[in-house]
């Protein structure tokens, strides 16, 4: 048991470190390091521009999308090299946020299902960040039950005509392309009538409207489709096989190991180390220590769970299912941490303005953003179902709509 690199890993790390040291936008390092959930905006700079510039610089030097094949804009690296890169990129990795969906989900789906010509055309600019992609799956009537989506695609000559609405589309407002899951046959069971496409987000009939979130920010959008035309050459996979295509997309989402989920613990530990309570330093208070210790072992448990997966990658093995716990644990933890940090501030915990609030309102921002973390990318409940069914082997829930034609499934609860 050791934490040492193999000689090849050490050589790769040294090369990555040297390049990052010479090329990263260091003027933003401190701010990126201090950023936390609900607050990653750079002051005095447009984060999208900074992120795109960094991604392009990486791509030009061959450091973008490391695990992708070279001909599609990647480096052809091993999974462990990708992890080493992420470790060395450190806070600058936070600039990759706007590319996560494109690189982690859209790209791999294109690689698996697009034609060779399309792959060579669309993947390199996706890798370099010159083109940003989004994923158009969720709908008002299909969130956790994504196969319940209603956006229609109807064949008209060599084209498909799209009508409907998507929701919770991250980054649609700055995306150039998207992958889109549609219903092509409402007369069969819901999983059997779906088809996947990719499309130009500038196509006539696409309208993007930002959603004002409960936190007051707008990271997500509603996307409306009115008679949007997509050529059949942009279909991914067979007609009515979209569900299987989407499973590839979602599988890739879970393969991204070592990306590091935010727990809020380092921020809370730092805060408690300097906070004075009425009767002394917070860090010497018995209750505070107990709470901190409980959060500490969750945070370290996640860290070392990820190390175990990285070790498997290093040996060339597939990581075990342990990593499926990350989002579930971190999502609710960051919310609890934020609530506790406010509690420690007493009545002043209510303040969120940067001038008056403790540490510029960091925990207040975290608190208001946190409910989203327990929903986005699979709710806590869906994550528990996944662990129970795929890891523990428990039977799937009984699905009353499984063999019912989609257009016969009830659409209303209480009348």
């Amino acid at each position, binding site marked *: *048991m050791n934490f040492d690199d193999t000689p090849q890993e050490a050589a790769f790390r040294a090369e990555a470190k040297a390049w990052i040291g010479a090329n990263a936008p260091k003027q933003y390092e401190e701010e990126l390091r201090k950023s936390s959930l609900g607050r990653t905006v750079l002051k005095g700079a447009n984060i999208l521009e900074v992120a795109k510039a960094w991604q392009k610089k990486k791509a030009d030097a061959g450091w973008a999308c490391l695990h992708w094949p070279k001909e599609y804009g990647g480096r052809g690296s091993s999974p462990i090299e990708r992890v080493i890169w992420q470790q060395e990129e450190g806070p600058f990795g936070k600039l990759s946020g706007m590319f996560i969906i494109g690189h982690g989900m859209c790209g791999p789906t294109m690689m698996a299902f697009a034609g060779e010509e399309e792959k060579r055309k669309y993947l390199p600019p996706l890798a370099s960040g010159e083109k940003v992609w989004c994923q158009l799956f969720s709908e008002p009537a299909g969130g956790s039950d994504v196969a319940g989506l209603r956006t229609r695609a109807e064949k008209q000559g060599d084209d498909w005509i799209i009508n409907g609405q998507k929701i919770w589309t991250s980054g649609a407002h700055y995306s150039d392309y998207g992958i889109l899951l549609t219903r092509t046959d409402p007369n069969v069971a819901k999983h059997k009538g779906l088809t996947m496409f990719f499309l130009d987000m500038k196509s006539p009939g696409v309208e993007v409207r930002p959603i004002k979130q409960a936190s007051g920010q707008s990271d997500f959008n509603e996307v409306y489709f009115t008679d949007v035309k997509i050529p059949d050459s942009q279909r991914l996979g067979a007609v009515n096989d979209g569900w299987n295509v989407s499973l590839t997309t979602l599988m890739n989402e879970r393969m991204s190991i070592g990306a590091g989920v935010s727990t809020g613990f380092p921020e809370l530990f730092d805060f408690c180390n300097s906070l004075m309570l009425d009767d002394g330093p917070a860090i010497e208070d018995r209750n505070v220590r107990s709470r901190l210790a409980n959060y*500490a072992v969750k945070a*370290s448990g996640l860290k070392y769970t990820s*190390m175990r997966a990285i070790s498997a990658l*290093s040996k060339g093995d597939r990581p075990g299912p342990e990593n499926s716990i990350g989002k579930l644990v971190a999502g609710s933890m960051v919310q609890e941490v934020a609530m506790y940090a406010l509690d420690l501030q007493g009545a002043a915990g209510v303040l969120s303005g940067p001038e008056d609030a403790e540490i510029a309102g960091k925990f207040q921002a975290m608190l208001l953003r946190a409910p989203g973390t327990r929903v986005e990318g699979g709710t806590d409940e869906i994550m*528990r*179902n996944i662990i129970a069914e795929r890891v523990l082997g428990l039977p799937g829930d009984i699905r009353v709509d499984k063999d019912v034609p989609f257009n016969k499934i009830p659409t209303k609860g209480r009348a």
Partner: protein
Amino acid sequence: MNFDFSDEQKQMRDAARKFLAEKCPPKAVREVLDGKATYDKALWKGLAEMGFLGVAIPEEFGGAGAGHLELCVIAEEMGRALAPVPFSSTVYLAAEALLLAGSDAQKQKWLPKIASGDASGTLALFEGKGNPSPQAIKLSASGGTLNGVKKPVPDGAIADFAVVAARTGSTGRDADISLFLVDLKAGGVEVRSLTNIDPTHGQAELTFKNCKAEPLGAAGEGWGILTQVLDRAAVLMAFEQVGGSDRALEMGRDYALDRIAFGRPIGSFQAVKHILADMYVSATLARSNCYYGAWALSTNASELPEAAAAARISATQAFQHCSKNNMQVHGGMGFTWEFDCHMYYRRANATAVTLGSLSYWEDQLIDRMRKKNAA
């Protein structure tokens, strides 16, 4: 990076699991639970023959000289099987204390006997309620004799020798505490068995009356040695707890697959699935913290104090969580003597306090993290 056990260590785990499945089925645990035996003597001998008792004891003292990573994988299996033998008291506490502080003669006297299964030992630290602290140690030592009462002492009624924490000064500092080695069969110690929540592991009261004892380690260094022994034992006990957590999770999962209610396996209800998913989460967090503890233990890393506390807290929480919810998933059957669920619940809650309680280790963890932060 190789943050995992080696193939050889995994083979040893498999061998231990196979051996314990055969020699230590629940029926054997119940012999001790029901008071028909104080511990499983045949199992103890078998563990010695497999080389498990002395796996981390150097060859010059009769052990296998393998190491602490090997001991971790065996500890996990011992916890999984609820082995009713004085393994933790003898191997994690007494042997570790001897290895850390014993003279060559003391090691020669006891370690080969531990490895061969001819002697078991324990640590006599606590004196009634409370957590490890120098102030709580009242038992006095003067002129090589001990006077005072220790309880609870794990496996104290069957141990052949004990490492005893005693007061040798009254300055109010850690240096007031020294360790002694006592042959419990040589007279001067009254032993009383105590009823406890986990009868598969005995607890005892030891009363020392002018009992002859030899120093273990230098005078005044007892507290420092004890702290190290407790850290090392915390990692090893955490592996037992993780083994128990995994088994409790499996039992719950298996029952949820087999038990039909409302016309379907109860494991298809999300209310039950989510309980089991959460058990998997806590067992996984604990296992990962334990691996870090194992690394720190096996390399004598400066991170050991922090790693040990984290492993201890995480594994204690996981075992309590998994064992109580295993009973919940079993419903009414889980609350019968006949089903094995309660044996895990008992062990989980006993191991949660016997090395110092959760709140004690929480306190330790934060102290240690602060020290590291300041450094």
